[in-house]
């Protein structure tokens, strides 16, 4: 159906330190997310999920392996084959575990900024920012600064920002951690909708068992290794995870 996968990683490996202090955070992580596919990445804390996500987000380069986004080889080992920041700006929406908003900008400006950096002019950027905030239920807080918003409101603004440029790839690290169950499910459904309607490839690191059914595919990660799983297997894996932590390293 599509010429290229939205996200394709090949034997990604990340090693921190060397010698006695060497830690392998990710080993031969291979994964493929097609355009229009919404994938969940689950696993216990310390499994390497966040390391994987930051590598795909061109934030933290892998030690070895390759990353292709929309068929374009962007990372070959630790070497970036494109300007990571520009590529991220144009093609990747990133939602961090904790809501990360620019402190001196209002909620609307935070969303608008992502588009302005991408060359969208002020008026359409403002209009879309308000639409997204409205869709995520925080329109009335558009002029509030991050410290004036609740954790959940901040997270929804961060999601709006990630979706602002209609990116081909969305990476979300525990995006619903600060949301209640209902709102969390709404957000997951939003990701699914974005994937299906915009043809974006989406990877969501999550521990939220209630929303696993919305994902098209589920990957499990343990000890730095990725395995393709199922919703049922994932639920079982999550139920067995006793630490209850965020799962992000």
């Amino acid at each position, binding site marked *: 159906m599509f010429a290229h996968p939205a996200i394709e990683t090949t034997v990604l490996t990340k090693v921190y330190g060397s010698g006695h202090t060497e830690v392998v955070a990710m080993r031969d992580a291979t994964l493929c997310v097609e355009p229009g596919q919404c994938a969940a990445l689950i696993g216990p804390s310390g499994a390497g999920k*966040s390391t994987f996500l*930051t590598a795909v987000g061109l*934030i*933290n380069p892998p030690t070895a392996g390759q990353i292709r986004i929309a068929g374009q080889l962007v990372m070959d080992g630790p070497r970036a084959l494109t300007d990571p*920041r*520009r*590529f*991220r*700006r*144009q093609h*990747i929406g*990133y939602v*961090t*575990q*904790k809501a*990360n*908003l*620019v*402190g*001196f*900008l209002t909620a609307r*400006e935070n969303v*608008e*900024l*992502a588009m*302005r*950096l*991408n060359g969208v002019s*002020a008026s359409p950027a403002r209009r879309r920012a308000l639409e997204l905030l409205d869709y995520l239920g925080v329109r009335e807080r558009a002029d509030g*600064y991050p410290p004036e918003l609740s954790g959940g409101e901040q997270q929804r603004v961060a999601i709006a*920002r990630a979706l602002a440029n209609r990116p081909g790839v969305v990476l979300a*690290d525990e995006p619903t951690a600060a949301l209640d169950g209902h709102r969390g499910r709404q957000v997951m459904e939003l990701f699914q909708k974005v994937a299906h309607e915009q043809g974006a490839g989406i990877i969501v690191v999550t521990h939220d068992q209630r929303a696993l059914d919305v994902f098209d595919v589920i990957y499990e990660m343990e000890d730095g290794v990725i395995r393709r799983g199922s919703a049922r297997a994932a639920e079982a894996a999550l139920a067995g995870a006793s630490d209850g932590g965020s799962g992000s390293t």
Partner: protein
Amino acid sequence: MNLASRDIRHNLGRFALTTLGIGTLLMIVMGMGGIYRGLIFEATMLVDEVGADLWIVQRATRGPFAEISRVPQTMVDRVAAVPGVEQARQFVYHTVQRERDGKPLRMAVLGLDWPVDKGAWLPLVAGRALAQNHFEMIADRVLKLPLGERLRLGKETYTVVGLTQGMTDTSGNGFAFFTVQDAQAVQFDRPGEAIRLERAAREARTGTVDIGKTQPALLERAGGPAAGIPVLPPREISAVIARVAPGADDSAIVSTLSGWADVTVYRREAENDLLLLGVVEKARRQLGLFRVLLTIVSGIIMALILYTLTLDKLHDIALLKLIGAPNRTILGLILQQALAMGALGYGIAYLLGLRLFPLFPRRVVLTSDDLVQLAVVVGGISVLASLLGIWKALRVQPNVALMG
């Protein structure tokens, strides 16, 4: 979207206070420059205002402003007789300190050669020039003597008939203008007892020599007023100032006057140089040095402030990188804030200076050249000061934003 203005808007109080601090610092830098210029202005102002082409002073001295210079009053006639001299005037200058209303009153006394010079060239802001040979004075406003004020100096009382503005000597003392005769009276005023003792001593000395013993009339004259003794010289003046006739060869006049064994002659430029290089040079250099140091200190303080402001924003900067902001956006954020801080600080410095500098005891002269120069320096400092913050901002990694 201008991030710098958004950040300033969000942290307006802190930015305003910081800018006010920088503005105050820049006002001091501006003030030091103004005092530096004021010193030069005060040093050369009188020489320029008097309008004399030549200064004839006591031989081997540097003129009345640098040291004591004494020439006989008759010198004015000798100079006036030199071909090419249009006008020669007596010049008396000295500094006195008296007490008025329990406070010290220090003034630079300058004698005007009545009736040739009644002070018409003075920049009067109130009152009039001198109208009589005695008991009138023109005072500068810095002396805080109101028009009509009667001031007792020595044995006489002088009435303030005119006021000038900004006429001060190299030490910042206001000028008081009298006729030469009154200026000398103020200068050579001695208590009656001292005069009586001197007359008695003179009479005693004369009585010990043959001529005194044999000529009682001489002995009697010796105990009388000094003005009645022909062998005693009249009061001396500080210098003679001369104006060269239009078309006359001033080199020839200088050559003639230089041939006289009892005087030294300076052209106006040379007299100015003597004042600048001799009287105020050290103060001028010290002020200049202090100004440079203050500018450097301002730069360091601005750099530290901008660096601290950048440190406070490191997480935001990392986040900007995470969402793909290019370096120029981040650079612009810091640089624009630095320039805004510098520009507003400069504006505050200027406005504060306009209000405060007139209250300074010494003259502060703000020239357009100096203001433009300082504006350029502040712009340069702003850019340089932001480099430290920019360096820090460019080093921060986007994953810092993920650390919460």
